[in-house]
């Protein structure tokens, strides 16, 4: 069959199905009249065309139709986005918006208290304060019960003129300190001056962190576990861990205040110094050896029993004879915050505020640990570990952060709440992931992905990413072999 005949027959096919343009169809018809063979072919095909029109068109099963429609409806309803109400709640779950909401509420509460103070008789509030505190007693709007410890502002000048450091524990409870100013100065002289190099976390204890670090520490602590309240009056007994809203809100306030204090912290020229009454600093990483940890657990006679006051620490018995925990806690790794920020960070041990503001669960944990660990009581260490771990992650010191967070989990054990554990797992996963240790990261992410935690989504994302990488590496190891026969290219040369 010549090419021209093929072309002609192709055009006949087009003519049959009416795909030729009008003028082309007329031209072809004229040609057909002149070519008898072509005309015969066309007639035959026309006959086949007419006969094939009789080909029955089958109907599909009606059940299929309805099944398809049912699935289509389901899919359409599933694809619809969340409603306005659902979106609002989704928005609330966003930590940023939640923080904003808390900020607004906090501001409103603050303004209410402020208004109340201005309208009321302010002399009552002022009268409750010591004279030394008066200059520093800003009209903060706090009720008298929640006001700063009276001597706190007075301790601040004592710490700063030393020109060395600001110690959280130093300014924390000067009113309760029994040591004289000379003793304090001597102690300050013994305290090693903290280094301020970039590798601070590796060398320096948590207590040497600067003010932003303290804010970070407070933030970490607040984010970890502030929903447990322990009544300090029940020291030595099993305590109830009932979450209270007031504890949360107070914690948030403290965090905010600490951040503010960090912002207006000591000028750069001022270095750290041990404040009066401050105990010597103890490093987080250096103090707790695995041996000590084991000993701590075995050695703690009662889970929440108050620890015997370590000889090195400043232990001040309370009125009822129980040992005071706060001084050692104040010496914890909250950082070198000035007294104002320290006030925001610490758990006050004053009897007046003790009843209303119990220490965190960490301090209770610390009681058991401190029996063996000496100055570094466990509660303090947990908070400090969390803070330093957070900062290490933020600073990109992942290996160090892994060590810290693992220690945190070891020390915390069963005492850690699920939120605390999840936070630690997430930090560990982040570190391992950043170091390219995907298997290790995966182990922690798996623990988080299925849970109803704020990290679940991010954990799942990271997990997906890791799984994708694993699949990709597997594929690269075993290349897929596809036979040529098996390909879907249905067309081949006729």
């Amino acid at each position, binding site marked *: 069959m010549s090419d021209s005949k*093929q072309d002609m*027959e*192709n055009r*006949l*096919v*087009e003519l049959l*199905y009416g*795909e030729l343009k009008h003028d082309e169809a007329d031209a072809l018809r004229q040609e057909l009249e002149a070519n008898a063979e072509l005309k015969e072919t066309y007639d*035959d*095909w026309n*006959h*086949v*065309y007419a*006969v*094939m029109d*009789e*080909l*029955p*068109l*089958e*109907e*599909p*099963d009606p059940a*299929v*139709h309805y*099944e*398809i*429609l049912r*699935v*289509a*409806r389901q*899919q*359409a*309803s599933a*694809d*619809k986005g969340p409603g306005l109400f659902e979106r609002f709640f989704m928005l609330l779950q966003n930590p940023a918006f939640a923080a904003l909401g808390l900020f607004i509420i906090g501001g409103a509460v603050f303004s209410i208290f402020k208004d109340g103070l201005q309208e009321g008789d302010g002399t009552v509030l002022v009268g409750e304060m010591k004279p030394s505190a008066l200059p520093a007693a800003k009209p903060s709007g706090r009720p008298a019960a929640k006001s700063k410890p009276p001597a706190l502002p007075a301790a601040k000048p004592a710490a700063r003129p030393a020109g060395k450091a600001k110690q959280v524990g130093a300014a924390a409870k000067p009113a309760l300190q029994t040591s004289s100013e000379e003793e304090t100065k001597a102690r300050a002289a013994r305290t090693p001056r903290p280094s301020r190099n970039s590798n601070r976390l590796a060398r320096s204890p948590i207590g040497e962190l600067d003010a932003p670090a303290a804010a970070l520490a407070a933030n970490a602590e607040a984010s970890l576990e502030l929903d447990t309240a322990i009544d300090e009056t029940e020291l030595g007994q099993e305590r109830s861990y009932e979450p209270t809203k007031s504890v949360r809100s107070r914690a948030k306030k403290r965090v905010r205040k600490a951040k503010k204090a960090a912002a207006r912290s000591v000028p750069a020229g001022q270095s750290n110094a041990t404040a009066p009454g401050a105990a010597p600093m103890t490093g987080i990483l250096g103090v707790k050896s695995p041996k000590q940890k084991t000993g701590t657990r075995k050695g703690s006679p009662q889970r929440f029993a108050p620890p015997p006051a370590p000889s090195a620490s400043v232990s001040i018995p309370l009125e009822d004879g129980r040992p005071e925990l706060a001084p050692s806690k104040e010496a914890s790794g909250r950082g070198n915050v000035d007294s104002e920020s320290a006030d925001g960070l610490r758990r006050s041990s004053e009897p007046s505020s003790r009843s209303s503001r119990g220490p965190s669960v960490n301090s209770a944990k610390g009681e058991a640990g401190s029996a063996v660990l000496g100055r570094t009581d466990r509660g303090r260490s947990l908070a400090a570990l969390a803070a330093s771990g957070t900062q290490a992650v933020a600073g990109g010191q992942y290996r160090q952060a892994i060590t810290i967070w693992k220690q945190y989990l070891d020390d915390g054990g069963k005492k850690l709440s699920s939120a605390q554990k999840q936070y630690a797992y997430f930090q560990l996963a982040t570190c391992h992931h950043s170091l390219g240790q995907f298997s290790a990261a995966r182990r922690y992410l798996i623990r988080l992905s299925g849970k109803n935690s704020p990290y679940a989504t991010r954990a799942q994302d990271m997990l997906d990413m890791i799984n994708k990488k694993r699949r990709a590496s597997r594929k690269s190891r075993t290349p897929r072999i596809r036979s040529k*026969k*098996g390909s*879907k*290219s*249905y*067309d081949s040369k*006729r």
Partner: protein
Amino acid sequence: MLSFILMVLGDSFDQVSDETLIERYRDGDVDAFETLLKRYERKLFNYILRYVGTRERANDLLQETFLKVVKNADRYDRRAKFKTWLYTIARNLCIDQLRKDRVRSGGVSFEQSSSRGDGGFAAKDRIAGSHDDGYKAVSSSQLQERLIAALERLNDKQREVFVLRHVDQMRFREIAELLGTSENTIKSRMRYAFENLRELLADYASEQ
């Protein structure tokens, strides 16, 4: 906006393009999808039926095709024609089905087992003979049975092109796009299909 005007005016979906309908379905309009379903289910069913040979399988594959459309509606790109997309899904499913059959039947290639090598005829004995439980029974007249038999005896490619053009009324250009080949190739296949059908139905023509 257009869809809103159409909705306000109470116009039916008959004049709306496939692409608009699938986009409307993507926005949650199930009626738009129903219109698409009604528009194509019969043609597509016949296409699949001529491909796989039995009503039961054709029903399954039809359902599977539209379910794929439902699930992948979000991925549909308006630049492609919906009709081509739909038929491509169906065709791939048919090919997969035939491949599974081939594996089950002992790994003999479909072309090898069915080809008679007599000038392009493909004896569809395996499909039409053993699986003709469905649509042959439905066909009442002798003529229709003969037409179906003749169609089944065509080469796969010729039959596919013939069904797409004659039954589903797709244009040659659309068929070429669907099958990923040139328009001339499609016309040639159609030409061969006509030649073979003419021979197969010659005795019928003489009876007439």
